[in-house]
């Protein structure tokens, strides 16, 4: 008997799939649960969604999170694009160093990174708060942005840009109409991805928030530690919908952004890594 279609493997696979999905199902079900302790099913209610939508902390937190996510996505894109452009014409050695720095930012554990940044800011008397969080998020977000944009850039034929220049386009025009244009799908994908990562982050924000308004994940974190009510579930479901929507958009963008062997390999690494 070949193990290609061994029944044991199918059984295990379905058990693992259930393991992945049942907790999420529980969150959704409990977000409608009338029973405050969630010990049993107390009937369906939309009360918790109402409560979540009117919670001052949640609303302010969401606003803060959106500002941070948007700003850090922009900064990451600026760093990612300029870095990738430089990388393309850099000597081999420098390329290797740059790649190393990019991967290092992905591999270093977030707690260590956040600590180091906290140090840096405190040492130089830079005030903790929103700008600090935005910088913190951008540090690792820009690494992902660089990977995605580089992947697209590898498939870019320099002769197109040379042709545009020969046809009389100014360097700025070549950059804007040819280079940037062909990088666009990767830029959009990287931006969305950075936005989502930042939107979901806890550790970096927690270290760098200072006395500023907490972003939403930290508000949630606090709620979980002090009281367990279905309200957390309701917020969770709403956040879930938003993140899944954004990530799907990012991936669709990237999937249409070209299917080069190398780019897929890099994208694969990317998908694999991030939580």
């Amino acid at each position: 008997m070949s193990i290609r279609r061994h029944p044991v493997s199918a059984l295990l696979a379905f058990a693992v799939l259930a393991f992945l999905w049942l907790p999420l199902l529980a969150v959704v079900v409990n977000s409608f649960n009338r029973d405050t302790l969630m010990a049993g099913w107390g009937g369906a209610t939309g009360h918790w969604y109402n409560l979540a939508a009117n919670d001052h902390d949640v609303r302010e937190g969401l606003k803060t999170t959106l500002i941070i996510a948007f700003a850090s996505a922009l900064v990451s894109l600026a760093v990612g694009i300029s870095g990738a452009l430089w990388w393309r014409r850099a000597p081999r050695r420098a390329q290797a160093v740059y790649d190393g720095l990019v991967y290092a930012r992905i591999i270093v554990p977030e707690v260590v990174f956040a600590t180091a940044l906290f140090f840096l800011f405190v040492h130089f008397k830079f005030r903790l708060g929103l700008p600090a969080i935005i910088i913190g998020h951008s540090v690792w977000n820009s690494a992902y942005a660089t990977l995605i944009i580089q992947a697209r850039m590898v498939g870019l034929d320099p002769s197109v840009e040379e042709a545009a220049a020969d046809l009389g386009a100014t360097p700025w025009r070549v950059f804007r109409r040819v280079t940037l244009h062909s990088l666009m799908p990767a830029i959009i994908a990287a931006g969305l991805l950075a936005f989502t990562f930042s939107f979901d982050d806890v550790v970096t924000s927690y270290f760098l928030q200072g006395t500023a308004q907490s972003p939403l994940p930290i508000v949630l974190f606090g709620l979980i530690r002090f009281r367990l009510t279905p309200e957390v579930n309701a917020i969770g479901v709403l956040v879930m919908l938003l993140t899944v929507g954004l990530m799907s958009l990012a991936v669709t963008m990237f999937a249409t952004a070209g299917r080069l062997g190398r780019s897929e390999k890099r994208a694969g690494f990317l998908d694999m890594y991030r939580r």
Partner: protein
Amino acid sequence: MFFVVPLVLVAVYSFGSINPVTLDVGFGWTTGNYRAFASTLYLHSLLRSIFLSLGATGACAVLGFSLAYFISRQPPRAQRLLLVAVIVPFWTSFIVRTYSWVDLLQNLGPIDRLAGAIGLTDSHLSVLYTPTAIAIGIIYSYLPLMILPIYVSLERIDASIYNAAADLGATPWRQFRRVVLPLAMPGVIAGCIIVGIPALGEYVIPEILGGGKTLMLGNILANQFQTTGNYPFGSALAVTLMGILMILLFLLRRRQPLQESA
């Protein structure tokens, strides 16, 4: 210049993470912090962190392998669908995913009731806020990260290899051990690196599922900054954590070429 400036910025940040001790003013060269770390309490939590993350990574590898293997043997359309099914839970908010286990694991929660109903326990499981709960949380959160690389390496294996092994009379177990596992090894190692590194420094999961009682290295580190304010000690912890990771990465790196040539 336009390209160099962000590069320098990046360099500054990455150096900040590698060597935070030197950024601290008014602090002479001393091994005092490391010696404080070697005291039993912290050493204990260091060992616990290592055991927990190694155990969770191992469990992830086993679970991840079974699903990745199944997915890689499906027709292409089903493969894509199943991969989406693996990735979507991974995209949902990290906090919410971890929190979902508080509901499930608490006494009188679904799992506790189920265990009681089938007569597994007399009273309650009381598994929430224990190292087991942390391990479950880590496995759950990082499982997709294990499945994807293993899937990638399994998917490349030609189906005829399986048939050949079966035709030559290998039992299913033997086929798995001698054919599938060696070919999938690079993916398994990649998955272990990707899961093991963040798991070792995990902060949020022990905080939520450990109830702040069972501490991992990440929590102690964070506490040094958030409450105690002992920055030098905290940075000694950070350097230790990095050191452990470096050693682990180095060991895995050395193994990899051997596996590929085998």
